[in-house]
């Protein structure tokens, strides 16, 4: 968008200067994805690993049920589609929760005076200096039936028996929410910080009350930040396996855990894990494409 002239200056040097980024993208992004794609079309080896023989078995197993011995007429296999659907649902809820809490938080920080802003931002990021695994385990200890939360409430007499939070969808939600909240707060903060508050004054001047201004002016203007935040929360939530593993039970099994299991120990099925990953990747790509399409439409109009 900015400066057509400067982009022309860099055009010639462009290819050479871009080489490092292409190398990084190639080695760390394209190569692994390509390997994953290839593995998903290979035959599984029972002790983990693959046999180099083309096969569609992994995708077949994902979508179709052919009975115990594989000789019945294929019907749709709902198990894995169900897990995917539940994961999307869980990730969507977590994204919504992060948005509802993250937006006011970001707004609050961005409207403080510039000196205190950095302190607030620092406070938001402090918990994330600790490893995700440790935080998730801590969460488990906090909310389990004999943990401090329940003991505190029991001691106060607010509840008569432990809440039984662990191994529920709610616990998974809490875990996801806590894991990814800053990914929502930071992009929205960046957008709100750039927001020109004279736009709100202009809206008020033109007979618009507070909520109308929020809906018609503020939200549309900071939308890029909101969308970025939602993507940054939704995508990792979708593939998360720590929170569902540690805080959820068998009923809250998510894609991340499904994929993780296929590569763990000797019980796994590498082609199937690779196929599930490819399907997950496709879903994420679709979400991003829809976003990119909208973004372009907004700019060219």
């Amino acid at each position, binding site marked *: 968008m900015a400066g057509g002239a400067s982009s022309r200056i860099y055009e010639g040097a462009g290819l050479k200067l871009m080489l490092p980024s292409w190398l990084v993208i190639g080695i760390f992004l394209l190569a692994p994805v390509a390997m994953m794609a290839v593995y998903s079309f290979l035959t599984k080896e029972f002790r983990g690993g693959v046999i180099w023989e083309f096969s569609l078995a992994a995708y077949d197993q994902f979508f179709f049920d052919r009975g115990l011995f594989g000789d019945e007429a294929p019907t749709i296999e709902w198990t894995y589609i169900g897990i995917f659907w539940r994961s999307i649902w869980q990730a969507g809820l977590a994204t919504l929760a992060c948005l509802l809490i993250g937006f006011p938080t970001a707004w609050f920080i961005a409207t403080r005076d510039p000196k205190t802003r950095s302190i607030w931002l620092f406070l938001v990021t402090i918990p994330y200096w600790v490893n995700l695994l440790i935080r998730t385990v801590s969460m488990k200890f906090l909310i389990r039936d004999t943990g401090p939360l329940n003991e505190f409430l029991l001691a106060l007499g607010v509840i008569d028996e432990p809440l039984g939070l662990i191994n529920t969808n709610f616990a998974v939600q809490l875990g996801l929410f806590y894991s990814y909240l800053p990914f929502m707060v930071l992009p929205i903060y960046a957008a709100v910080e750039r927001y020109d508050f*004279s736009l709100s004054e202009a809206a008020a001047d*033109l*007979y618009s009350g507070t909520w109308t201004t929020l809906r018609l002016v503020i939200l549309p203007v900071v939308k890029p930040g909101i969308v970025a935040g939602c993507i940054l929360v939704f995508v990792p939530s979708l593939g998360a396996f720590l929170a569902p593993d540690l805080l959820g039970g068998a009923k809250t099994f998510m894609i991340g855990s499904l994929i993780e299991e296929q590569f763990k120990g000797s019980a796994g099925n590498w082609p199937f894990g690779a196929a599930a990953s490819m399907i997950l990747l496709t879903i994420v790509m679709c979400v991003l494409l829809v976003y990119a399409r909208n973004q372009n439409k907004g700019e060219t109009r």
Partner: protein
Amino acid sequence: MTSPDIAVAVDRVIKRYGSVTALHGVSLDIRENEFFTLLGPSGCGKTTLLRAIAGFEDVTEGRILLKGQDLTGLPPHKRPVNTVFQQYALFPHMTVTENVMFGLLRKGWSRPEAERRVRDVLHLVQLSDFAARKPGQMSGGQQQRVALARALAPRPEVLLLDEPLSALDLKLRQAVRMELKALQRETGIAFIFVTHDQEEALTMSDRIAVMSAGRVQQVGSPREIYEAPVNRFVADFIGETNLLDVAVQSISAGQANVLLPGNHPFTCPAAAVVEPGAGHLSVRPERISLCPEDQGHLRATVTGHTYLGTDIQLHVVLVDGETMSVRLQNAETTLVPDTGSVIGLKLETGAARLLAD
């Protein structure tokens, strides 16, 4: 107190920000259908006053009346005034049409009516061809006109403009001045216009309030302000002037008898408050003519000149060491005296005025 043809009455308004007092008891009456300008140097409280009228700032003391109705406590979105913001504050995600329609829809106009009004207003500001553009795709001058259209569309009782021309280049600014003035005539509502550019104020306004340090110094027509400034601040701020220390001998019926440097007696109009003693004489540089050294009111030595295009500015020093400047029109026949030569200066009638501090 408020007669029916007063659009906005500002009544002893005081505004404090903590320990800073931005407005020290400002009172003004702005008439219906008038182009009223708030003029003053940076930080004198113009924006604060405008924002108080729009409702963005609460006043600490005093009140503001709109057509006789007290606005105190009314939030901005309930005040029937609209603002053209200094940086325009156009909604970047909306087209020109949507921007202009915003206030109409919020005010409860039906969509067809609003659409018709938007077309009319865009026609008025000559932007009909840009209706579908977004503000980011327009030049500064075009954006300024969108801001104007957006503020005018809902038919406000009063239009507030905070230095709306400051983002434009000189040529465009001069063209837009006239458009703005014509627009005010056409719409028939009061414009309250903020500027720190005295030329802008003089060319556009019906009346001007000159402000300094949170106080109104003088209210009057451009001519009154320029030709009959009440004090040194106004004389100095509006246009260029020479301020001479003189001895005041007597004042009667608004006329003062003074002794000019070099002890030449001189009679001139005096601002009401001046008393005999020492005073300041304001002399406009373009109202002085040159003459042989013994025939003028003042005797001066030329120290140099500056070429200004339309004019030539002559720098002189008086016998008592005070410096003055004299404007000579840059005509073919103009003779510029040499540096170092001694000349006489003749003050034209009405050129000089005795001022209070």
